[in-house]
C-alpha cells in the first residue's frame, strides 16, 4: 500500500466516520434523555437521503404522506388524552405544534416538489420533511410508556424501525439512489487529493457538533436536556417537562439523522434499508465511548469508519466481520480498565 491509497482510505474512513459520529451523538443524546435506544435512527438517514433523491427527480416524496398520517394520529392522541383528563387549556398549542406545523411543511414540500429548486434548497426541504417525524414518533410511540423499562422501550424502538423500514420500501422502492455532489472537484496535490464532497461532510459534521456543544452548554433548553439526562425526577421537580425534553431530543435526532442522509447521499448509494447498518455502526461507536460521553463517542465512531475503510481494502469480503469482531477486544480493554462498573436499574 502506498501513500496515495492510504490517503484515499483515510479520507474515506474519516468521511464515513463523521457520519457514524453524528449517529453516535444522536444515540447518546436520545438514550441519556429518554432511555430509548433509537433503533430507527438509521431510518432518519435513509429517509433524508431518499427524500432528497425523490425531489431531485421531481417527484413528491412518500415522506409527505407519512408526515400527514403521523400528524393526524398524534393530533387524535392529543385530543383523546385531553378529553380523558378533561383539560383542554393546553390543547390548542399542542395541536399547533404537532399537527399544524407538520401539515404546513408537508404542503410546502408537495408544492415545491415539481418546481426543480436548486440542490441546496431541496436539501433543506428534505430536512424540513424528516425532522418533524422525530417529535411525532415520540408522541405516538414512546411518550405513553415513557416510564417503562429500557428493554420494553427497546422493543418499541424495534417496532418503530420495522414500520419505517417497511414504509421506506413502499415509498422509495427497492432500488438505491445517489444524488449529485453539493460541491464538485477536489483539492490537493497529485499524490493526495481530497474530494470537495468529503470536505463538506466533515465540515458540516464538525460544525453541527460544535453547534450542539454550544446548545448544551450555553442555552437554557440545552441545559434542560442535560439535566433530564442526569436525573429525570430531579429535572421534573425543577419544572422541566420530560415530555418536552423527549420531543426535543427526538427532533434533534431526526434532524441530525436527515442531515447525515443528505450528506451521505452523494457519496454512497442509499437503499430503503441502508439506514440500519449506518445507525448500528454509530451505535457501536457510541458504546465504545461508553454511551455517556460525546467526545468519546465521536472518537469511537471515527475509529469505526477508518477501520472499516482499511479493512475493505485489505479484505473486502471480511470488512463487516473485522469491524464487528474488533469490538470485542475493545470491550475487553474497557473491562480491564474499569472492572467494577455497576449501573443498577431497578
Amino acid at each position, binding site marked *: 500500500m502506498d501513500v496515495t491509497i492510504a490517503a484515499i482510505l483515510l479520507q474515506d474512513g474519516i468521511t464515513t466516520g463523521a457520519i457514524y459520529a453524528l449517529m453516535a451523538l444522536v444515540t447518546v443524546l436520545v438514550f441519556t434523555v429518554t432511555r430509548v435506544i433509537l433503533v430507527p435512527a438509521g431510518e432518519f438517514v435513509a429517509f433524508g437521503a431518499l427524500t432528497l433523491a425523490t425531489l431531485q427527480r421531481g417527484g413528491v416524496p412518500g415522506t409527505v404522506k407519512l408526515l400527514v398520517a403521523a400528524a393526524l394520529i398524534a393530533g387524535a392522541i392529543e385530543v383523546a388524552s385531553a378529553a380523558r383528563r378533561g383539560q383542554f387549556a393546553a390543547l390548542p398549542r399542542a395541536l399547533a405544534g404537532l399537527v399544524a406545523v407538520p401539515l404546513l411543511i408537508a404542503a410546502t414540500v408537495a408544492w415545491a416538489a415539481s418546481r426543480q429548486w436548486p440542490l441546496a434548497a431541496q436539501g433543506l426541504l428534505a430536512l424540513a420533511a424528516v425532522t418533524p417525524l422525530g417529535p411525532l414518533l415520540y408522541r*405516538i*410511540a414512546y411518550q*405513553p*410508556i415513557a416510564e*417503562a*423499562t429500557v*428493554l*420494553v422501550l*427497546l*422493543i*418499541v424502538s*424495534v*417496532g*418503530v*424501525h*420495522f*414500520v*419505517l*423500514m*417497511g*414504509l421506506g*420500501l*413502499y415509498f422509495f422502492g427497492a432500488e438505491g439512489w445517489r444524488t449529485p455532489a453539493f460541491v464538485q472537484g477536489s483539492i490537493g496535490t497529485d499524490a493526495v487529493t481530497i474530494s470537495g464532497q468529503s470536505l463538506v461532510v466533515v465540515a458540516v459534521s464538525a460544525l453541527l457538533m460544535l453547534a450542539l456543544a454550544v446548545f448544551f452548554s450555553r442555552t437554557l433548553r440545552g441545559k434542560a436536556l442535560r439535566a433530564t439526562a442526569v436525573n429525570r425526577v430531579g429535572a421534573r421537580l425543577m419544572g422541566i417537562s420530560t415530555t418536552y425534553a423527549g420531543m426535543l431530543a427526538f427532533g434533534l435526532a431526526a434532524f441530525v439523522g436527515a442531515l447525515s442522509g443528505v450528506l451521505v447521499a452523494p457519496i454512497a448509494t442509499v437503499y430503503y434499508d441502508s439506514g440500519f447498518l449506518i445507525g*448500528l455502526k454509530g*451505535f*457501536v461507536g457510541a*458504546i465504545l465511548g461508553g*454511551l455517556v460521553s460525546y467526545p468519546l463517542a465521536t472518537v469511537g465512531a471515527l475509529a469505526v469508519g477508518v477501520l472499516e475503510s482499511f479493512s475493505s481494502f485489505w479484505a473486502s*469480503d*471480511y470488512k*463487516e*466481520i473485522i469491524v*464487528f*469482531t474488533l*469490538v*470485542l477486544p475493545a*470491550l*475487553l480493554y*474497557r*473491562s480491564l480498565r*474499569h*472492572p*467494577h*462498573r*455497576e*449501573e*443498577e*436499574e*431497578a
Partner: protein
Amino acid sequence: MSLGRGDPVGSAAELGFDGLPPNAAPVPAPSWRPWLRDRIALAALVLALVVLPLAPVSPYWVTLGSYVGLYALVALGLVLITGVAGLTSFGQAAFVGIGAYTTAYLSTVHGVDPWFGLLAGVALTGASALLIGAITLRMSGHYLPLATIAWAMAIYYLFGTLPWLGRHDGLQGIPPLRLAGVPIVGDAMFWLIWAVVLAAVAALSNLLDSRSGRAIRALKGRAAMAEAMGIDTTAHKTAAFLTAAVLAAVAGWLYAHLQRTVNPGSFSLNVGIEFLIMAVVGGVGHLWGAVLGAVLLTLLKDQLQVLLPKLLGTQGNFEIVVFGALLVLLLQFARGGLWSFVAARVPQRPRAPLPATADALPPRRATQPPAGDPLLEVSAVRKEFGGLVAVKDVSFRVRAGEIVALIGPNGAGKSTCFNLITGVLPATSGQVLHHGRRIERLDARRIAALGLARTFQHVQLVPTMSALDNVALGAHLRARTGVLAAMLRLDRRAEARLLAEAMRQLARVGLASQARQEAGSLPLGQQRIVEIARGLAADPELLLLDEPAAGLRLREKQALAGLLRTLRSEGTAILLVEHDMEFVMGLADHVVVMEHGEKIAEGTPAQVQRDPAVIQAYLGSVE
C-alpha cells in the same frame, strides 16, 4: 406470644419479636387445589401436544408447530438471562447458528453422526458464550448488549463469507436425526422438539426455585447486595448466560435436522431481535411467557403473510409495517407481556410445604469466640473523596458478645465508615483487622465469607421474591449445590435445610407468618426486619446493621432492641450505625461518636452522654 398463626394481619403481636427460636416452623398449609389445577393444566398441554399431529390437520401446521417449539426454546433462555437476571442479549440467533452449522457441516461434509454434532455444537457454543461472558459480564450495563450485537453481526457475515460453509447458499442435504436406525421426521420431530421444550421449562423452573436460582434472581438491580451475601455475581451471570446459549445451541441442532438445510439468513441479528421480541411480548419474567410469545409471534407473522396481500395488495412489504405497528401498540397496553394477563387470573402456584424435619445447617464456626475477645479492630482508618476527607483516622474496636453503636449527626461519616468495614469502599489509609487479619482491602464477598453479615440503610431485598427466599439468600454460603444439581432436582435435601434455616430465622424475628409474602409487599418496618433475618441466616460472628431503627414505630423499635439483646446473649457481636439516641443508649455496651469525619468521644452510654464534646455536637454550645 404466638408466632402469628391465626393472628389477624398487622396485629401488634405480629410486629413484635420474642427472640426464641421455635421448634418447628409454622407455615399455613397450602391448599392442594391450585396444585392439582396446575397438574391438570400441564397434563392437558402434554395431551394436546401428543394429539395435535395425529389430528386431521395439514402437515403444514405440524411443521409450523415444530418451529414454534424451537423458537420457544431460545426464548426460554432469554427469560432466564434478560427477564430474570437483567442481561439483554441480541446474540441468541448467532448461538442457534453455531449449533446448526456445526451439525450441518459435520454431517454433510464429514458424514459424522448427528448426535455427535449435538455434542460438538453445544461445546462450540458454550465456548463462545464463555468467551463473550468473560469479556463483558464483569461489567454491567450496556456492554453485554453491544458485545452480543457485534458478535451476532460478525457470525452472520462469517457464515455468509466462508467458502466451506457454502457462503450465502449455506449447506444442503443435512440427514435427518435417527434413533435406533429409525429416522425422526415429521410428527416424530414435532414430538421430540416439544419434549425438549417441556424438559427445558422444567429444568429452568427447578433452577429458579433453588439456591443458585435465588442468586440469579438477585442479579437484576441487587448485585451489590448479592455480593454482600457472599454471592459471586459474575459466576452466576456466566452460568445463566451459558445456560441460555446451550438452549440456543440445542435449538440450532434441532433446526438443522428439521429443515435439512441451513443458510446465514436464519441466524442474523434481526432474528436475534425477534427472539427478544417473543420473550418481551410473551412476558419476559415468566417461563411460560416465552412459550406464549413464540406461539403468538410465529402465528402472527405467518397469518400476516397470508392476510395482508389479500387486503392491501402485493405491492410493498406491509407485513413488517403492520407487525411493527402491532408491536408498538401491544406494548402500550401490556408492557409486562401477555403472560401477565394470564398470571393475573391464575392464583400463584403454592410451593410444596417445607419439610418440618430438615436437619439444621452446620454452624459456620466450631466455637464462638469467648466474650470480650477483640473481633474487629478499626485502626486509624481514613477515606478521602478527592479533597474531601469523609473519615479522618478513626479507631475503635468491637469485642465478642457486645453491641457497639456508631453515632453522630448527619454527615458525620458514619455510613462511610460502615462501608469501609463492609468492603463496599476501599480505605485510603489505615487498617481494619478481623481476628488480627487485615481485611480493609477485601471486597464485600470475601468479607461476607469471614462471617460478617450486614444490612443496608436503604432496604435491599429482591421485591418479587418471598420473604423466605430473601432470607435464604443470607444462608447462600452455607450450602454448595450448583446450577446443574438444581435443574435435575438433586439439591432437594440441601435446599430443605437452607429453607428450614431461613424459616427458623424468620420465626426468630417474629415474621414467620409473612414467610410466603412477596418481600416488596411488606411494610418498610418489616422489610428492615427481614434484612436482619437475612443477616442472621449467615450465622454471623458479627452483625453489622446500618440504621436498623430508621422508619420503625416505637413498639417496633422496642421489639428490635429486645431481639438484639437476645442475639448478644447468644454470643453474636453487633455493630450498628444509628441516629436514634434513645434506641442506642438503652441498648449499646459501647458507643463511638463521630462528627465531621472524626471520632470525638467513645465509652459507655453514660460516659458519652456526659461528654462535653458530644453535647456540643448535638445541642450546639451553651453560650
